[in-house]
Each structure stands twice: as C-alpha cells, then as structure tokens.
C-alpha cells in the first residue's frame, strides 16, 4: 500500500482526486473545497436516486464530505478517490435506509402490496394513463423511470446507479459495496431484467 505524506510521493499518485485528498490530509483547505465542488452533485445524484428524498439526500451529501474530512488523517491513496467516497456514500445510504426501514415498510404496505393496492407495473400504467395514446411528457417519463428504479432492491438500485451515473466497472462497484464482482454481475443482471420488465410497455410510446 502506497503512502503519500511527502510531496515526492504525492507526485507518484496517478488519480488527481487522490492527490487533492493528500493535500487535504496535509491541511490544504482549498483542496478540500475543490473536491467538494467536484463531487457534490455526483454524490447527491446517487443518494437522491437511492433514497428518494431530496432533503435527506442533501443532508447525507454533506455528511459524506464531513466524514471525508474527518477521515483525512487516515486516508491512504491505495485506491481511486472516487471508490473511497462512493464507499462512504453507499454506507451512509444503507444506514439511512435501515433507520427508516420500518416507516417505509408501513407506507409501502398500505399503498402497494395489499389485495386492493396496485402492482408496480399497474402503477406505471396508471401514471402513463392520460397520455399513453400519444407521446409521453418528459416529466412523466422521468417519473416512470424514477418509480421503476425505486422498485428495485436497494442493492440492485445502488449497483445500477454506480454503473449508470459513475460508469464504474463491476470490480470497482464490488469494492464499494463490499462484495465480489460476480455478485455485482448477478445484481446488475437481475436489476436490468427487472427494469426491462417494468419499462418495456413504454418503450414504444416514448
């Protein structure tokens, strides 16, 4: 594992963000601000689509950077900085999900899974109803896609978001989610099959 506390070692680090983080470690506050600016919207996008609440996602985004700053002294640029920050992001998203699991379960049960509740696909049809005969409004498409992603298993959802938004490979996603690339391959395959099943009826009307 390479260490990068001295400037000479710092120059050996290939990842520019890891170099910035080493500067943060050395006390450079502007480097930290630069990192925040670079990653804030990327982290927010993953968190927002993973959690579904804008307000909570913003709070968690700030928490991610607070954790990055707090952990600066122990930072070792062994892996890409993005892998490290999205590992923190994934952990926080999991914690947030766990803390509100009960509340969420109750809400979903009342709305979706009872004998009188609509199935996910039916909900999508209902959402598309008013304009299904013609072209769907872009906001409606966005809502349908968002709902389809929200129906995915949380781990599938996180793998999809990291793959789609961050263009990360299976190995990197596996590192972030603390699993194997084979497990990620399986997660993503199931996720994409589920998404195809949920969104296929709308492929022709878009």
């Amino acid at each position, binding site marked *: 594992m390479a260490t990068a506390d001295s400037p000479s070692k710092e120059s050996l680090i290939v990842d520019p963000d890891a170099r910035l983080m080493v500067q943060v470690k050395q006390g450079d*506050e502007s480097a*930290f*601000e630069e990192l*925040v*600016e670079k990653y*804030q*919207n990327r982290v*927010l*996008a993953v968190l*927002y*689509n993973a959690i579904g609440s*804008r307000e909570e*996602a*913003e709070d968690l*985004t*700030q928490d991610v*950077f*607070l954790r990055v*700053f707090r952990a600066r002294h122990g930072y070792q640029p062994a892996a890409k900085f993005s892998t490290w920050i999205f590992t923190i992001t994934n952990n926080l998203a999991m914690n947030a999900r766990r803390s509100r699991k009960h509340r969420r379960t109750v809400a979903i049960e009342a709305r979706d899974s009872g004998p009188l509740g609509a199935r996910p696909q039916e909900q999508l049809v209902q959402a598309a109803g008013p304009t299904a005969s013609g072209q769907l409004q*872009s906001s409606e*498409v*966005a809502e349908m*896609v*968002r709902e389809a*992603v929200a129906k995915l298993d949380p781990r599938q959802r996180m793998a*999809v978001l990291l*793959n*789609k*938004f961050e263009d990360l*490979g*299976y190995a990197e996603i596996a590192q972030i989610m603390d699993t194997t*690339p084979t497990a990620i*391959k*399986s997660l*993503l*395959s199931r996720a*994409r*099959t589920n*998404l*195809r099943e949920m*969104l*296929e009826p*709308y*492929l022709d009307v*878009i």
Partner: protein
Amino acid sequence: MNLVAFLDGELADDALGQRLEEKVAQSVSVRKEVQALEKTWGMLDWLPHPELPVDFASQTVTRIHSQQLRAEMIEGQFKYWTTVTARAIAWAACVAAMVVAGFASLRYAWRDPTRELINHLEIVENLETYLAIPDVKFLDDISRINMFKEPGEVTAETPASEESAGAAPAPQGPSGQPTATPAPK
C-alpha cells in the same frame, strides 16, 4: 446474466463473448432482448440529476469549522473539569492520608496512664496486704492450717462432700476467677 455482462463489456471469457455475439446476430428473439435491455438502460438517462447550490462547498467548510470549534470547546471543558476533579480528589486523598497518619502516630505515641492500673487493679487494691506477707511459704502455712477459714468456706483441701453441704461459693475477682483470701492485717 452473461448477456448483461456482455452488453457492459464485462465478460472475462472471450470465447463466450464470441458465442454471444454470434447468437445475437442469428437469433431475432435474442436481438430483441438485447435491444430491450439497451433501451431500458438508456431510459435511465431520465433519472433526475439534482444540483446543490453553488455555495454548498463553502457551507460544508463552515460547518466543519463550527464542528471543530464545538469539539475543541467540549474538549476544553472536559479537560478543565477533569483537572479540577483530579485536583479535588488528590487534595481529599492527601487530607485523608494525613488524618490517618496523625491518628496512628498519636495512638502509637500516647500511652494511657490508667491502662496499667486497670490491668493490675486487683494487685493495687490488695497491695498493702501483699506487702505485709513476708514470703510464699508463710502463705502456704496459713493455707494448710485453715487459719482464716470461714464457716462453710470451700478450700483446696475441702472434700467434695463438704462442698455440697450448703457451702457458699468462693469469692471471685473481677475476672470471674476465685481469689485468694487476703491475710488479716
């Protein structure tokens, strides 16, 4: 599973990739499946990409500073109260140790003048009588002839049958032991 990995370019097995490629080219259903997967994947571009305010970074830094300040204040208060408590405990321990040491040394150094008198009270009370006796032989002699024997008194020589015939109990000292009868002046 392999089809998605093939689309993602994550198939490690080149031969398998080749076979899948051929299958996609030959089979209409597989081609449709691939197209559907690619289209739905493309639909994810519709997912929202919210943005944070431009001053988010500076807000975060400000929050870090305020947290650091608060942490330092809490740490400072903790240190202050820890020091005060430690000093108070040290002082209390010193005072207690001095009290114990003083009490112990006083107890060791100070001798109670009445203790010896109490220990030898019987001798002190009968001192004049004991001084009047010339020696132990004299005591043995008067004891043998029962010179000072009271009626019914039990002596060492009195048989057990006499003792049981209405004899009064021998006088006892403060410790409950029978005492020697002092000789008359």
